[in-house]
């Protein structure tokens, strides 16, 4: 292929990458314009549907309240996420060491996962202090993907490598530290990526449940509260923040995963190599 031909191919690749950014942005801009126009042309009242401009203005004017609520929700999410990570990875390690333990407890982990958290939240709020209950909710939703992914990872160890460790008389701890955990790392990181988003969902669900019980100050509580007061612009602003928080959490975890795996794992390698 000529140098010019190669350059054209490279340009084509760049153009395609650019399109993948430009197109969604265009769609967003178009959607916002249409939304604003619909609201203005039909003279729709803000308590029915606020336009994006008003939502943005509310976001700025109510920033102090919303920012505090965002921090509250993020803290809950973080606590739930850490609990889910530690709990999920820890339980998977225990299961990996003892089949008896796995057989005894795994069904209950599944039950905890398949029971909708929105139904558990009100119960937890009865028996636990509110802040604890909210974190527990975030934990319940987040921990199962970490558990099942870590378990999958620990069981996906290359059989020959395991044989090699056996041949050289590796202790259980050595096999865990030098073989099983590194092998499972891509799976664990995948689980954590899911758990990050789910912890936010768990926190929001619990906050809404708690909010209807008359307490709380997180973003989800703000949404519920604003709903009662027909402060629809603030509802939208809070929703926007929640959405952004979710994106940032996902992005951060994806970045961590990429940085941890970029030198060796297929998922983090460039397509051309």
């Amino acid at each position: 292929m000529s140098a010019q031909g190669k350059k054209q191919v490279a340009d084509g690749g760049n153009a395609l990458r650019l399109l993948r950014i430009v197109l969604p942005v265009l769609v967003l801009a178009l959607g916002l314009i249409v939304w604003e126009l619909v609201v203005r042309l039909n003279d729709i009242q803000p308590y029915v549907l606020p336009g994006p401009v008003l939502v943005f203005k509310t976001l700025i004017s109510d920033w102090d309240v919303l920012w505090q609520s965002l921090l509250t929700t993020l803290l809950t999410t973080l606590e739930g996420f850490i609990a889910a990570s530690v709990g999920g990875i820890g339980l998977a390690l225990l299961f990996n060491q003892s089949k008896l333990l796995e057989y005894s407890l795994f069904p209950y982990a599944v039950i905890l996962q398949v029971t909708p958290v929105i139904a558990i939240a009100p119960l937890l709020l009865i028996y636990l202090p509110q802040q604890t209950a909210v974190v527990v909710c975030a934990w319940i939703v987040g921990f199962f993907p970490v558990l099942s992914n870590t378990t999958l990872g620990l069981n996906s160890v290359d059989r020959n490598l395991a044989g090699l460790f056996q041949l050289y008389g590796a202790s259980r701890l050595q096999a865990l530290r030098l073989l099983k955990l590194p092998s499972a790392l891509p799976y664990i990181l995948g689980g954590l990526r899911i758990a990050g988003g789910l912890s936010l969902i768990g926190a929001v669900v619990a906050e809404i449940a708690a909010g209807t019980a008359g307490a709380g100050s997180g973003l989800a509580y703000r949404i519920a509260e604003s709903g009662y007061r027909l402060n629809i612009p603030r509802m939208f602003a809070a929703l926007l923040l929640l959405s952004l928080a979710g994106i940032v959490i996902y992005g951060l975890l994806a970045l961590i995963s990429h940085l941890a795996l970029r030198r060796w794992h297929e998922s983090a390698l460039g397509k051309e190599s």
Partner: protein
Amino acid sequence: MVQVLSDIDADLAGLSVSLRGVTKTFEGGISALGPLDLKVRKGEFLALVGPSGCGKSTALRLIAGLATPTTGTVQTSRHDRDARPGHAIGFVFQEPTLMPWTSVWENVRLPLRLARTPAAAADVRIREALERVGLAEFAQSYPRELSGGMKMRVSLARALVTDPDILLMDEPFAALDEITRFRLNNDLLALWRNLRKTVIFVTHSVFESVYLSQRVVVMTSRPGRIAAEIGIATVEPRGEEFRTSAAYADYCRKVSAALAPAYSGRSAL
């Protein structure tokens, strides 16, 4: 040909590996191996040839202690200085079987790390092993950055780093292209000449087995048994001229003839 030795301890009789009446039956009652009797002298280069499924890999795993025989005994001589079992044995798998998450250096270091060898002593041995396989300047590379042949060399360096008495190789070069395989064959022969380790080399290539070994053991399948033993007597060191000699072709014909019954009754798939 190997001389038959009396039934004394393998170590004393100048044997490196001794299998006596070894059978292996897998769960579900599939008889994979034996009964198998095999004696390998210290410093011998032995090739095990046979169709796939003839239990040659199983035999290797039994010798390595990665599996236990259903009946019979497996004896291997060990370093006196190493109390831990398995140390006297290096194993090279069909795949390079490297840890993808860490560097070539760390991969080669693994056996020493598992044995808790002091860092200073380990460093010397790792460097030596990497130099032996010609990969000294790739110590900090990751496995995925290497070619198939280079990965296999890393695997070989890892097997050599403990300075084992016995090197077990399970079709190590089967997945490589022919040029790379020839080069690695020559390198392996050079290593063997220098280090005089006992090598048991499993392959399904008649040509490879004759080129490398002092003795070719042909196995039949289901259950794996020894069908024939052919000693390869030739002028050492071997090189490309042996590969093209009439004697080489002769040995290959003999091994192929011994191998033919093992394939009879199988469809030509």
